[in-house]
């Protein structure tokens, strides 16, 4: 198997909007790589820069903030 780069991305999503959009993507059976993991926040305003840095520290290749 070839070692294709598959980035690990942490998506910080607002409960009220982007998280719902991710739900809808599922309901519509859209596809995206499994390397995307969603973390739910009450509002993206709650996202502390520290959490993004933590994600990178623990090996994430990207952070996606959606809200």
């Amino acid at each position: 198997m070839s070692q294709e780069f598959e980035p690990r991305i942490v998506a910080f999503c607002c409960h009220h909007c982007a998280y719902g959009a991710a739900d809808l993507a599922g309901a519509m059976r859209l596809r995206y790589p499994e390397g995307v993991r969603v973390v739910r926040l009450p509002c993206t305003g709650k996202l502390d820069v520290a959490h993004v840095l933590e994600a990178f520290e623990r090996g994430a290749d990207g952070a996606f903030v959606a809200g």
Partner: protein
Amino acid sequence: MGQASGSAGLTGAVMVVGGGIGGIQASLDLADAGFKVYLVENRSAIGGHMAQLDKTFPTNDCAMCTISPKLVDTGRHLNIDVITNADVLAVEGHAGDFRVRLRRRPRYVREDRCTACGDCEKVCPVAIPNPFDEGLSTRKAIHKLYPQAVPNAFAVEKRGVSPCRHACPAGQRAQGYIAHIRAGDYEAAFRTIKLDNPFPGICGRICNHRCEDACTRGRVDEPLDIRALKRFVADWAYSRPYEPPPPADRRFDERVAVIGAGPCGLTAARDLALEGYPVTVFEALPVAGGMLRVGVPEYRLPASIIEREVQEIVDLGADLRLNHPVSNVEDLFDDGFRAVLVAVGAHEGVRLPIPGNDLPGVLTNTSFLRDVRLGTPPDVGRRVVVIGAGDVAMDCARTGVRLGADVAVHYRRSREEASAHPLEIRHAEEEGVAFTFHSNPVEILAGPDGRVRAVRFQRMEPGEPDETGRRRPVPVPGSEFEVECDTVIFSVGQRAGLAFLPPDTGVQITRQNTVVADPETGATARPGLFAAGDTTTGTAFVIEAVASGHRAARGIHAYLRGEAVRPAPKERMPVAELSDEELRERMTRGEIRKGRRVHVRTREAQERLQGFDEVSLGYTEDEARKEAERCLSCGVCSECYSCVEACKADAVDHDQVEDTQQLRVGAVVLAPGYQAYDARLSQEYGLGRFPNVVTSLQLERMLSASGPTRGHVKRPGDAKVPKKVAFLQCVGSRDQDHDYCSSVCCMYAAKEAVMVKEHEPGTEVAVFFMDTRSFSKGYDAYYRRAREEYGVRYERCRVSRLVEDPDTGDLLVRYVRGREIREERFDLVVLSVGMEVSASVRDLARRLGIEVDDHGFCRTTLFKPLEASRPGIYVAGPFREPKDIPETVVEASGAASRAGSLLAGARGTLTREPEYPPERDVAGEEPQVGVFVCHCGSNIGGFLDVPGVAEYAGSLPGVVHAEANLYTCSQDTVAHITETVKEKGLNRVVVASCSPRTHEPLFQDAVRAAGLNPMLFEMANIRNHCSWVHGGDWEGATRKAMDLVRAAVARARRLRPVRSLRYPVKRQALVLGGGAAGMAAALDLADQGFPVHLVERTGELGGNLRRIRFLETGRSPREYLEDRVRRVVQHPNIRVHLEAELAEISGFTGNFTSRLRHRSGDTAVIEHGAVIVATGAREYRGPDLGLGAHPDIVTGLDFEEFLFHKASGNGHDLDLPIARRSIPDEVVMVLCVGPAQRFCSRTCCVTALKNALILKELRPQARITVLYKDIRTYGFKERLYTEARRRGVVFRRYDEAEPPQVSTGDGTVRVWYRDAATGREVSLSPELLVLAEPIVPHADLGELATRLKVPLDSDGFLLEAHVKLRPVDFQTRGLYLAGLAHYPKLLAESVAQAQAAAARAATVLAKEHVESEGVVAEVVPERCAGCLTCVRVCPYDVPQIRPDLQGAGGIAGAAYVEPATCHGCGVCAAECPAKAIQLAHYTDDQVAATVDALLGADTWYRGEGDASAAPGGC
């Protein structure tokens, strides 16, 4: 259901009719104010039209995102019963106490069991146009209205039993298996057939197919060849290797005997075996199949088919004993059989009573065919005569031909009267059989050898009709003739041989030798003895034998179980008949194209004669699918039961029937909404004929990301992306049939135009319109942006017709610009359709006895805008007049307030509060986590390793229990979670299933029921975010699910209880402003029982209402004003503070303290729970257009005052410079003065036209010229415009860029403008110039707003929380707004909005306590440096620095966040540089643990742990 009544015979419940946004809002407001609500919706889910929309104007918010939380709140509200698929039949009783009769149509899916997993939808073979997508996509018969639907459950669309099924004695689901054939799923088709019939191969060949006679397609062209389709399926199934079915489970011990292995007996045997009985079948012949095997010739029904179908029944466990005649039925009972079914058929042929009927060589049909079939054909000689012309006679004749004889058929009646199928007769003729009709045998003559030599016949002719109406054949005298032959076969009927029934059994036998038995159950007079099939009816068709066998099996089962043998009749579903109109419509739409059935190929006659090979060749796969395509799916659902089989939650129930229900309510709120105008009726635009003409709703669906084209605009004709799009406005509005404006189309067209451009930049968009009616807050700015920023072109012209270019599908639009006629080509044309009241809503209004106008809109009055003509029935939304979402929401709240006022005495009498056990203290306990992993049917389990994930969860630190469930959200599993928490002492729970947005509250309730704080719960979304988006990647999805569960567990371990806070509510209200809105709000709240402080800064109540002298309806506003003032002053619950203003306010929702300052300097302190701001606005009186420069230039209000005084004859009282002038003959009115060029002041057009008409009344010869840029008489106000033109008012349009100018230089008033239509400059010298001044905010509104901490919009009006869905709320809870301070509006609109504000305030005041969620920010003062960051970033102005708190280092002053007002967004926590603020439930350690665990294990590392899979490494 027992229902308590409140005081004075009031019922504390309200029925809300219509589940659109209006009905939802009214329900929520009422339920939150302490009333039980029944929300009745006629579709399977609530959401209405708003759920269909993509974006909403003017904010471009996603419609679904904004409505979805309301849907969920409504669905989960303890005191709202959402009743779907229901219609209101009647409302009896009176205001305060109604009885409502409802009809509930079956959903066919149990809402309490359906988990909305969608497994059923996948297997459903019936696809129909999807109305939710406006026909642009298809959906299944079992469906969910839309993905976010509430209730979150599937529903079956079933119009009734399809005619084919209804016609079939055995109830074969023909539509069902045909649907499967169409979908290419022959296995499912086979299974569907076998639900009702064990003999698909047999019936597919020889059935008399009554289904085809009933087939609706026959009314279009030809019925489907259903029989051939069935045969195709059977042949397909039998072409693969036979796999015996597993023997049926034995559940009962009573043995049952069946006599006769024909279709009837075998059907019964199979049913009984499947039911679990030991069954023995006794057959006298050496073969099974009965008449099918020995009566039907091989060339029609090959023995191999019968053997295959019989074998399956034997393999199921029926004990078949061939060559086993029964001589006495009583012996069987003696042998221990508890029930015996006689199904021996009718195997004895009948001979006519004529001389020579028993000569050697004279045979009967049954014996002849049997001998041939059993391989011992008789020697028939060279010439055979067959007597009779039924199907069996044809079998005899054609068999005779195959044995090498010349066959002559004689029949005493005509060819038309022959009972054989015409096709059989034709085939016989093709094979050389000679037919002689009107020929009756009188004697059979013997030859010298004693055998048959000839038959003597007599010619017959039709005589007098007999009692059946058939003409009885009578002999023609002297017409006898002889026919030489070697064999005669009688085929004139057959009957049963019943020698085994001893006379003493008590069983009755008829003259026709049939057994008398109950046709429904087969029971005879002898207990335990049953009879069915031909034995009881005489010869019939195989499908009837099958049906009879089913009935007998049910009868026997009931008998053996001791139940009533004859079950109570079940309610029958109606037959789904398509009307001629519907058929025509479907043909017009191109869904049905006329044609012919696909004919079944047969062997050539020559080839046929070679032997007994099957004549019919059956369909090929292509032919079958082509034929199946012709099915019209009459019933929609085909009842194929695939969904029943697929549903693991056992939720599908096809036996549900319609029922009616009666409910007691105190009031009814009608919010049934609108229907979009059916633009196909405007044939000039070609909708339905030209594929690239769509409606605005269709475009809306295309624009929606979850719509049929996933958000891409495509031409339906060829799926091309259009480069040029035209919108045609006013389709179904402002025309001959609609004398009103639909109010919303201008704005939605602007929005859609903008969206088209956003989706496909570079698209050219043109809007063809008459006036742009962008009359609400922010609308004009939006319209300008569409034009100026997005470059949407507006052409002021009504297009009269469209022409399609047939080669390209493009559309040619002809229009006028200036004086030029142009023709332009567009790729796509969008019709902006207007609003109508549907026929069903008109019916509803009729049933309820409320008044409607000619168009079906509900009649209400200006002063009581939300009240229908019948007391206790309130109305909101477009049913009253076309309107958009915010106004509908306003009216819905207002209607809720009206209902609340009526029922105030019964508040809280029928509502429930949730009850939970006391909370367990988990402090000090180590985390004990329980994990529940959901299969969600196959939705998760089919895509990843659920047991593996559960096992993995069990290995995680802190987890003491892990399990997998089929559906974690099913009622029993939810109860099981509660039990497990208690049993195992869990203190944290994780559910790995779907979205917390839909399911978190459900599971939180479950843990709460076990005594845990609901916040000790966490979800891992392994469906929407995992299995559904990573289909086909089993490994990856499993790995990710493990990661998500690990992160959820890590977070769960750190979760802490969060306590909600309760404060007592100060149950009185403060209303600011004593005008029309303030008084209406105060009165509604006071009527609801809440004390109100009404604050007015002038010395009298009434506000601007005092200056309104006429209403557009002609009624007097004075009466209303005086009535209101009197009621306010006299109301015991209202305290009026005149000449007073709000000086100071503090506190939060439910708990405010305000200080009022009286002009005298006195102050008063008021404690209250809610505030309504209704401080009004004023007429703009700026110097624009010469106001003040000349006495003959007046404002609209001055002019109205002038007219009033002139009309009442006391003009000299008037305190205006024009007081002394007479009624003028020459008036110019200018619209859109000053600030109105920036925002539409909404009321000016209507007011100006109203006054123009009054002037015309006073002085008919007056010449009135109205200078305007758009006439914005929205809704029914359009009629004023029409009337003004009719009365000769002259309308002249000027261009926005060049507004009119006024000069008064020489002492006369001159108005100059450039006429937009002609381009010419025009100058007018009116006697009076009336400036329609806009309404502008009070100069000091900003100060009040600052005091209240509420925002203003860019025009200086108060800004509501959300323009669309929270139109009377402020962002800050407990504060509401109404009237002109919000935006200019007409009187009725102000009143409705005030009532809405009252309803919203009542939701606070109705409660004893206000509860804050608990997910709020908390400050640790010792760490706070008082840097003010939190104060600055909070969007809700909550944090404050409190001097009484000690901050970091002991300094005085630290931040404080009031938990009651905190919204819990966490912005302050994220921004606090000292980390002194934490957001409960999302503390830094909790978020960090989540992120850490998500990334911190091996599972997400590429290739690690499996180094061998990655040779070469990096």
